[in-house]
């Protein structure tokens, strides 16, 4: 048996878990783990041809369980997601080494558990991404769920509560997936992808509906699709800093990976398109698209109301997942490329944003948006990273988020879906408003007296952030680099592929060349700068208390930063729409379950052995007779 590159990758990943587990209590564990992530990334690079349309690589390891062959393989889809996973793991782990680590240990955090949980997450994600049939997919899925739970719950307190909520959702999702797998097995007789592909085209409508609902709900829970989105934001926000950067970057994209694999690749988007909902004009695909759009809008506008920077970002993580699904559901060349590209772009800027916010927490001790302000003069580099990140998140040029969102919008217009387009734009509006709140309340405005001696984040944290910021800009300038990987993913799952160039896409209905866009943008800045400097370039810095407040004389003890009840005017208009309906829904389901369990409890507490015996016997007789 010879080791394939995939085996090497999984082996290195397993070794990393072992190292973190056995040597995690030693001092340079963080650096060791980071280097091992780097080695994993190198092993992944050995499979780089996959990202450019290479042949799928199988693992040498296969075995049979109850007549089912379990196998692991990497194709372009797995490679693309693995690249993002390992990249974000490497940078978050690098970020955690050094000063953050020391502070974390001093404040009573369990560093060993942190590294162990991170490595376990990466390992289980790679296993999931490498799954070669539905059974190994399910195994990987469960591993990812529990590894995620470990990372989310480790902070204790509120985090444990959030993680418990997550695991409840995740288990419900796993049950749905398991039910779906059982249904597939019944109809296809096998769990191999090839067998399912042939069986999918002959499935009855009712059968396909069941599968779409079961798999959609199961994978959708991980993605935080409406109405299963409530668990995600608190769970990610309460994870220790670099952990939330990693989770926010990639963790919930595992749901998207599975949706791509099962709903798009195996069942085929055309089959799903044929599922009509009776008495309405929409089909299952429209339903998915609208779920995606509501997943964009509601969490984004919830993010706008958050007063904790990490919560705000975590809510955006849910909302941006909607864009990815929306692009994939449109499923034309541009839309699918946009959705897939957004996975990469989102990972880069979300990690950068979480890291920047963690750096602020590291220096000031709080992420409360009402207790910060004016930090741009004390943490200018962190400010730059956050600025680059929010431009990406809001989908504005010259950062990479613009490209993927442009592709999704373009495809919605091309395919004649104006209502979805308008809804997606409303989501973007909410994004822009809330990221402005984020940067304003942390970095702009009045510097507080207690933050006067705050320093810039240490270099061990700064360098990964700067690397991410550079990636965000470079892939915004040259989106052709990730688009090449995306194109081979599209080929691998059977979606149409757009004509991509180094600077964007070519299309008869409208091309995008980011090199031109950014060139024109910077030329505009350049002309402005020329005029300014030729006219003398005179500027004057003034003290922050030399400010206009209706003519009042400002003093340091008076707060004039407008941060609480941000967007009061907008809230006056839309405030009534925040009703917590989904919380209410969750509560009512919880109450129902509690009520039922109380009833059951009452039943077995009676301890009437004869009654149980009698009822069991009756059930058995009834079952046999029927």
């Amino acid at each position: 048996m010879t080791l394939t590159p995939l085996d090497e990758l999984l082996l290195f990943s397993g070794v990393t878990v072992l190292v973190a587990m056995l040597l995690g209590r030693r001092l340079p564990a963080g650096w060791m783990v980071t280097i091992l992530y780097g080695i994993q990334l190198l092993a992944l690079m050995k499979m780089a041809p996959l990202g450019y349309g290479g042949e799928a690589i199988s693992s040498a390891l296969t075995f049979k369980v109850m007549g089912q062959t379990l196998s692991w393989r990497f194709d372009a889809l797995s490679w693309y997601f693995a690249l993002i996973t390992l990249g974000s793991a490497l940078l978050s782990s690098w970020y955690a080494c050094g000063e953050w680590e020391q502070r974390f240990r001093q404040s009573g955090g369990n560093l060993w558990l942190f590294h162990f949980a991170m490595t376990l997450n990466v390992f289980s994600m790679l296993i999931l991404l490498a799954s070669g049939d539905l059974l190994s997919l399910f195994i990987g899925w469960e591993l990812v769920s529990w590894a995620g739970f470990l990372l989310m719950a480790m902070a204790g307190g509120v985090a444990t509560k959030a993680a418990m909520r997550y695991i409840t959702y995740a288990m419900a999702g796993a049950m749905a997936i398991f039910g779906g797998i059982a249904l597939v097995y019944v109809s296809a007789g096998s769990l191999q992808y090839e067998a399912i592909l042939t069986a999918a085209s002959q499935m009855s409508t009712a059968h396909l509906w069941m599968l779409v609902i079961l798999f959609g709900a199961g994978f959708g829970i991980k993605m935080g699709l409406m109405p299963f989105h409530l668990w995600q934001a608190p769970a990610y926000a309460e994870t220790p800093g670099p952990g939330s950067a990693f989770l926010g970057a990639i963790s919930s994209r595992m749901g998207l990976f599975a949706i791509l694999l099962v709903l798009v690749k195996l069942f085929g988007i055309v089959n799903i398109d044929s599922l009509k909902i009776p008495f309405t004009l929409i089909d299952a695909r429209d339903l998915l698209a609208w779920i995606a759009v509501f997943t964009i809008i509601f969490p984004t506008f919830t993010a706008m109301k958050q007063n904790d920077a990490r919560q705000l970002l975590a809510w955006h993580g849910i909302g941006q997942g909607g864009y990815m699904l929306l692009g994939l559901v449109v499923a034309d060349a541009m839309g699918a490329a946009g959705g897939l590209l957004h996975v990469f772009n989102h990972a880069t800027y979300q990690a950068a944003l979480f890291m920047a916010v963690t750096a602020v927490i590291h220096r000031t001790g709080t992420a409360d948006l009402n207790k910060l302000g004016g930090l741009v003069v004390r943490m200018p580099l962190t400010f730059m990273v956050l600025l680059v990140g929010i431009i990406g998140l809001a989908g504005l040029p010259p950062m990479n988020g613009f490209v993927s969102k442009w592709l999704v919008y373009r495809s919605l217009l091309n395919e004649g879906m104006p209502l979805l387009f308008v809804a997606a734009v409303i989501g973007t509006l909410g994004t822009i408003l809330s990221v402005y709140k984020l940067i304003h309340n942390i970095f702009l405005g009045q510097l507080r007296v207690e933050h006067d001696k705050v320093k810039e984040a240490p270099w061990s944290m700064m360098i990964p952030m700067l690397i991410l910021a550079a990636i965000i800009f470079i892939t915004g300038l040259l989106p052709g680099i990730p688009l090449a990987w995306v194109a081979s993913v599209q080929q691998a799952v059977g979606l149409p592929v757009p004509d991509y160039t180094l600077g964007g896409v070519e299309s008869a209905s409208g091309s995008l060349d980011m090199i031109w866009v950014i060139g024109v943008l910077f030329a505009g800045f350049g002309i402005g700068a020329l005029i300014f400097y030729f006219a003398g370039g005179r500027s004057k810095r003034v003290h922050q208390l030399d400010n206009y407040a209706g003519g009042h004389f400002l003093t340091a003890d008076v707060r004039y930063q407008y941060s609480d009840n941000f967007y009061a005017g907008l809230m006056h208009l839309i405030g009534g729409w925040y009703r917590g309906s989904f919380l209410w829904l969750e509560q009512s389901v919880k109450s129902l379950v509690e009520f039922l369990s109380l009833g059951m409890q009452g039943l077995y507490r009676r301890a009437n052995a004869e009654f149980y015996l009698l009822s069991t016997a009756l059930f058995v007789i009834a079952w046999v007779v029927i």
Partner: protein
Amino acid sequence: MSSIKQIPVITERKGNPLARVFDEFVRFCRSRSLFILHYCTGCGAIELPPAMTSRFDMERLGIQPMVSPRQADILLITGYVSIKTLKRVILTYEQMGSPKYVIGICSCTVNGGMYWQSYATAKKLDEYMPVDLYIAGCMPRPEAVLAGLQKLMDRIHSGEANSWEDYFRNYDYYLGNQQKLFGENWQTPTDIITEAKHYDLIGEGTLGKHTQLLEQHQKPLEALDMRLGHDLKEPTE
């Protein structure tokens, strides 16, 4: 200095013959794009909404309201100026970037008007800051306001409206009047003397005994420097 006419105006410029054309062009542009900060101290403010809105529409003259002094060109003071308000007016005036113009609307800014006998009202605005234009009346109608604004535009175009230079050239006089009213500890965040040096407008009247008094107790507000923090030195107390 009680008359604006006494301010020496440099009319001849040597060197580049295009400079005069350029100056003319700059003055033309300046007079056609004016942002006003209306510091509405009294009843005269009620005449501004009709002047701004569709009936009289001062935007057709290129004049628009502005919310902050840093971007504003005209400071419009509409009514009586109590001593307490005057402090704010001066703070706001000093925060404005040059060139800046002051218009006093209503009789109260000219001579105290019906508040002549009040102990708490500053009678003449131009004792505390140079005023380009008064629009008298109690209150002046929007037509009068617009006529006044047009007059100011003409003066900006012809280069006569440069009373803002007077504030730098004769700072000592204005500061003295301010100190007389507010006490010796009076100071604003803006450092006028440094700014006068910046504009090269240090005159004979810039420094004097009042500015000496100011320098004795002035606590300068230094701008926050942007710093990376790694070379942060502990401040020496």
